[in-house]
Structure formats: structure tokens, C-alpha cells
């Protein structure tokens, strides 16, 4: 039940052999232009350039909304203490996949998930698993900043409070301060912790939401296009923040913007029409994509 090494699951063996093949491929075709593009139906995988741990793994995940299938057999390993970005045109299933990871899809009526997502080897869709605990381990930041209509302090204290993480007021104060500091918001709000969180600017609100997620000390943070409602300056601040957070958390970010994916992430997965088309180190995906659709998307032919 405790931490398990990625190589122990049988499902991984298939993908690791694929990774070997890919490694071979990358080595064989060094010049970018000569890269032969495939159009095959299965996911193209490029190996990671540095050794990483994989505690979060998805295998053959399919999602159905009623009769409609939204995600087809997605398998993905998410590296520890790194940023993985999910890119693709709108409606491609990247947000759906993201929401599977902390089972937020449970809140949508008629949504069904098959396949397996493991966190430390535990299947998160196992009926015996407690979704409350899962979500305390896997935090989420949403597309639009959604601070609660409470004070800044209460917003951050919300998670620790419901989970009973602080045993005393001072402990809570410490958690709030540490979380706000880590979210880079402390200096801006330390004198008005009692004011409403909804009174902050958009970028500040989003950092408040990040602080709120951090306050629970999650292991994984999911971010669903966290900058789509923000102006470029606020976006830059958030991107810097994500880069800092990477040292402590496993982060998965859904983004519309390739530049953002390139700036913040180490690994990138490209989704199209509910399928995971290609995944690999961000540099590889951005510079030498090996699937035709990925290249079309990167070069702006589909979007």
C-alpha cells in the first residue's frame, strides 16, 4: 500500500518497451527535418530525457458521458516533482482526463470511467478508496479563479479546517502563512487577511486558489487552464509560481497555449478527439513531434 516502484505493475512493461523503441528512434534520426511522421492510431511515446519517478499512472482510461465516449484508452505516466502539461484543441478530452485524476468527474451525472489510474499503486477508482482522502492528496486549481465568498484567511484555512489538519489556532495560522508564502501572495495580503477573497484581482485570486490547494499539503496539484482568465502579466506571475512549486509537488496542467506548455512543463501529452496522440519530454514534442497530428497542432494547422 505504501510507495511502490513504477516497474512493479505489469501494465508498465508494455509501455517501457515502447519507450525503449522510441529511445532508439530518437537516437537514429537526429536531424529534425528528416523525422519520419507517423499517422498510426496508437500513442507515440518518447522516453524521458532524465530519470524520473512515476507514482501516478493511468492505464487505458476511457470516459463516457452517457452514451458518448469522451476519452479513448489513455495511458500516461506522470513524473514526480515535475510539471506535465496536457495540450490539444478544445474538446479533445484533456480536461476530462485531468478531472479523472481526483475523481471530479464523479460529480457529473451520467459520467462513467473505465480503466485504471493508480497513485502509489493504489487504484483510485477502487470502491474501497475514499474519495475525500484522494482529493486531499490530489488538489485542484480551476480555470476561473473561484475563491469562496469568505475572507482570505478563511479561504486558505478551509481545506485544513475540514480535514482537521490544524490542532490549534497557531498551527492554523502557520499553515495559512506558509501556504500564502508558497503561493507568493503573502506580502500582498498579509495586512488584509480578514478581507473578502473575492475582492482581490484576478491573478491574486488565482494565487489564492493555489494557496488554498497547497494548504492541504497535497502530493499532486491539478491545474485546469489556470491562466485562461488572466491578463499576460498575471499569467507570467502564475507561471513563475508553477515553476517554483515544481520542486515540491507533482503538477499536471491543462493548457491551451503551447508557449505556456513549453515554458512551464517538462513533459507534454498531446490529446486529439479524446485520444492521447503523443507524449514525451516537452522539448521533443515541441521541436520534433513524431506524429503528424501533433506536428499539425504545433505548427498551428489544427487548433
Amino acid at each position: 500500500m505504501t510507495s511502490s516502484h513504477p516497474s512493479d505493475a505489469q501494465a508498465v512493461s508494455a509501455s517501457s518497451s515502447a519507450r525503449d523503441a522510441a529511445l532508439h528512434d530518437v537516437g537514429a534520426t537526429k536531424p529534425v527535418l528528416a523525422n519520419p511522421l507517423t499517422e498510426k492510431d496508437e500513442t507515440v511515446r518518447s522516453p524521458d530525457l532524465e530519470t524520473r519517478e512515476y507514482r501516478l499512472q493511468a492505464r487505458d482510461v476511457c470516459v463516457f458521458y452517457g452514451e458518448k465516449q469522451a476519452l479513448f484508452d489513455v495511458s500516461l505516466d506522470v513524473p514526480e516533482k515535475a510539471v506535465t502539461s496536457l495540450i490539444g484543441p478544445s474538446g479533445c478530452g484533456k480536461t476530462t482526463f485531468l478531472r479523472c485524476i481526483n475523481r471530479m468527474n464523479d460529480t457529473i451525472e451520467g459520467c462513467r470511467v473505465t480503466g485504471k489510474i493508480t497513485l502509489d499503486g493504489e487504484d483510485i477508482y477502487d470502491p474501497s478508496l475514499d474519495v475525500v482522502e484522494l482529493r486531499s492528496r490530489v488538489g485542484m486549481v480551476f480555470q476561473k479563479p473561484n475563491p469562496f465568498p469568505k475572507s482570505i484567511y478563511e479561504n486558505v484555512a478551509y481545506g485544513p479546517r475540514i480535514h482537521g489538519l490544524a490542532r490549534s489556532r497557531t498551527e492554523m495560522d502557520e499553515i495559512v502563512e506558509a501556504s500564502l508564502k508558497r503561493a507568493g501572495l503573502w506580502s500582498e495580503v498579509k495586512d488584509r487577511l480578514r478581507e473578502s477573497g473575492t475582492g482581490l484581482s484576478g491573478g491574486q485570486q488565482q494565487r489564492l486558489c493555489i494557496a488554498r490547494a497547497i494548504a492541504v499539503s497535497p502530493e499532486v496539484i491539478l491545474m485546469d487552464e489556470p491562466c485562461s482568465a488572466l491578463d499576460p502579466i498575471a499569467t507570467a506571475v502564475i507561471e513563475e509560481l508553477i515553476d517554483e512549486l515544481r520542486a515540491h509537488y507533482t503538477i499536471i496542467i491543462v493548457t491551451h497555449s503551447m508557449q505556456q506548455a513549453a515554458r512551464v512543463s517538462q513533459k507534454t501529452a498531446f490529446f486529439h478527439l479524446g485520444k492521447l496522440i503523443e507524449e514525451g519530454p516537452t522539448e521533443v514534442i515541441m521541436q520534433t513531434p513524431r506524429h503528424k497530428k501533433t506536428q499539425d497542432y504545433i505548427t498551428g494547422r489544427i487548433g
Partner: protein
Amino acid sequence: MASPSSTSIKAQADRRRVRVRASLGRRHLVEWLFRGAGLTAIVIALGMVVGLFWIMISKGLPAFTQATLSAEVTFDPDIITAGPPPVRESGQSEADYRAARMAWEGQVARLNWNALVEQAVRNTAPAGMEVDRRTALALVSNIDRHNLRDMFVANPHLLGRTVKVDLLASANTDNWLKGTINRDLPDSRQQLSAATRQLADALYADGKIRFTFAWQIFTNTDSRSAPAAAGLAGAFVGSLYMMLIVIVLAVPIGAASAIYLEEFAPKNRFTDFIEVNINNLAAVPSIVFGLLGAAVFIRYFGLPMSAPIVGGLVLTLMTLPTIIIATRSALRAVPMSLRQAALGIGASHNQTVFHHVLPVTFPAILTASIIGVAQALGETAPLLLIGMNAFVAAIPATPFDKSTALPAQIFLWQGNENRNFFEARTSAAIMVLLALMITLNALAIFLRTRLERRV
């Protein structure tokens, strides 16, 4: 890689895991209780609906059948001594003929029709049973003699003939046979004398008294002297008049003011005031509208008491806000692009509203109107203040005549002294009222789905 802050984060995560796990049991229990409370509330609310309908129906259904005595009635010339009806002679004025006819009918009415009824009951009674006058008359309803008289007036050739007639049993007989009164009560607390009870039981055993469908609930007006014959016809027509007035006045005025406020009115203090005013009017207690009706329509304008015209006007004013608010929200739901498209091709503001916006909202306006009318149909309190709870034994010919209304009739009946009989009859009246309201609402839903599909 293993920086100090990173290890502290790991420590925090481990502590979080322990504490979260510790809190889970209690939190899931609270969740379960909370959810259970919600479900209980829904079950209670749904149970109330079911219970209410169940009680009304189980109390009201028996009232739809009534004890009826089939008897042979002889139009005995010894009793009916009024002579032949007058014939209009040439040269006689309409007024004179009417006067003569009235005189004859008056004469007929004064005859001893009870004797006819009495004879008929006695003839039906089992052989050997002594039936005295009071016993016989208590068995059947007071309306029977009027019915026999009306039969004769309509057809004077019945004189001397014997016909089979269904006589309505009295309310007390009905109670006795249905068991709505406790059969073990001592004589002094029974509504019927021992002899009548015995007669009723004997006739019921003979099959002479049967339970037949109580048409009179639908065909008769209210009746005090013959409770068994009391019906809803007068109240129904009174309600019908009021609903017609509401439809004719409230729907166009309501739709027009909604159109004005939503489409034309400039945004200023005055229209703001109108809006606040309408929202507030929708929440004014209905009884206040009754006071308005009593003071303004009856006292100031001198309209008659107890008349459907006043009731209709009061209900119109009450329904107006409902229709306005619903129509406005329907208009608001029409996308701006439709208006802009129409204006863009050169239609005037009026044309845009009347040719493009209004047709789209028509189903919603219709639905709102029907629901408003249904609501007005069940309204009681204001009617009491304008005298519509008066006893009226005639079907109103015009909206200016004295009349009652369905809910007011229910109010009257529930207060009747013959509790045993009228509890069922009131429930029956409630069933009729509810059936009408459900029909109206079902119509609204039907029309909405039907029309919205077409648009």
C-alpha cells in the same frame, strides 16, 4: 534534490494523511446523516402530496353515489286539481299570457305534492309494513316533490297516469345506508326515526333503494331544504363567468404591460417604480384584494354584491402580476440577436416586437395565463369579502346576478350542520375543483411542449 523544505513538505503530507484518515469516520457519518435528512424532507413533502390527495379522494368518492328509491308514482287527479294549463288566445298580449301561465303554475305549486311522494313510498314499502306520513317523507329528499311538480308542469298529460320515477333518498337516509353515521347510536342521537331506518334497510334489502351515480352534484344548484340534492352547477357557472372575465381582462392587459415594460419602457425612476410595484403586488395577501373589491367595486362603483363581475375583476387584479412577471421573463429569454436581426433589416421597433419577439414567447405567455387562471379559480378569501359565499339557489344568468363560486361553495358546505353528509360532499366538491385545476395545468404543460416544439 532533498532540500530541507522538500522534506518538511513530505512530513506535512504524512501528517496530513494521518489526520485526514482519523477524521474520515466522523465526516462520513455526518455526510450520511445530512443526506438522510434531505431525503427524509423530500419523502415528507411527497408524502404530504400523496396523503392530501388520498384523503380527499377517499372522503369524496362515496359522495359520487347516492341512495335512490325507484318508485311508482301516480299523478292522482284527486290531488292534482289545478286544471289544464292556459293557452294563449289571439289578441292576448305576451304579458297577459305570461301572467295567466304564472297563475296556473302558482296553483300547481301549491298542490300537496308531498301526498304523491308519500303514496309512492308507501306503495314501494314491503307488504305488511305500516308507513306513516312522517316516516315516508323522511325517507326521501325534499327535492322529490319539486321534481314531480316540474315533471307535471313540463308534461300536463301525466295527469292520472302512473310512471316509474327515481326518487332521491334524503341525506339522512344516505348517511344511514352508507354508514357515515354510527349505526349503534341511541335513538335520541340518530337523525332518522327508528321506523324510517327500518324502512330504509328493508327497501335496500329489496333492491328498491340502490346507489346510483350522483348526477345532481353536476346538474343541481345548492339547496338548503334538500341537502341530498345540493349540487355545484350554480357555483360552476359563477366560477366560469369569473374565469372568462379574468381571461378577457387579465391576459391582454398583463401581456401588454409586460411588453411595454420589457421592450419599450425607458429605464427611469417611473418604470423602476412600476416594476417594484408589480413584484410587490404579486406578494400582497389575497384578502387585501377582497377589501379592495368591497371598498372600490361594491361601495364606490356600486356594483352588486355576490356578483361574478366583481369577483372576476378582483381576481383579474390578483392574477395580473403573475401574468406580467411570467411574460416578462419569457420576453427576457428571447435572445438579443433576434431583435438585432429584425432591427437590422429595417423593421421598426414595434414591428420587431410584434412580428418577431412576441410569436416566440407566445407559448410561455399562454402557459403563464393558464396557470394564472387556475390559481384564480381556487382563490377563496377575497370572494368571502364581496359576498360570494351567499346561499344562491339559481344558476346565474349573467355575470351581474347573485352567484357563488366553486371554492366559496366548498367553504359554505364545510360549514353545513349536517356534518355527516356534507363532509363527503365537500370532499367531492374539492375533487371537482382539483380536477379542474389539474386539467388546466395539464393543458398548460401540453400546450407548452406542443408549441415550443414547433417554434
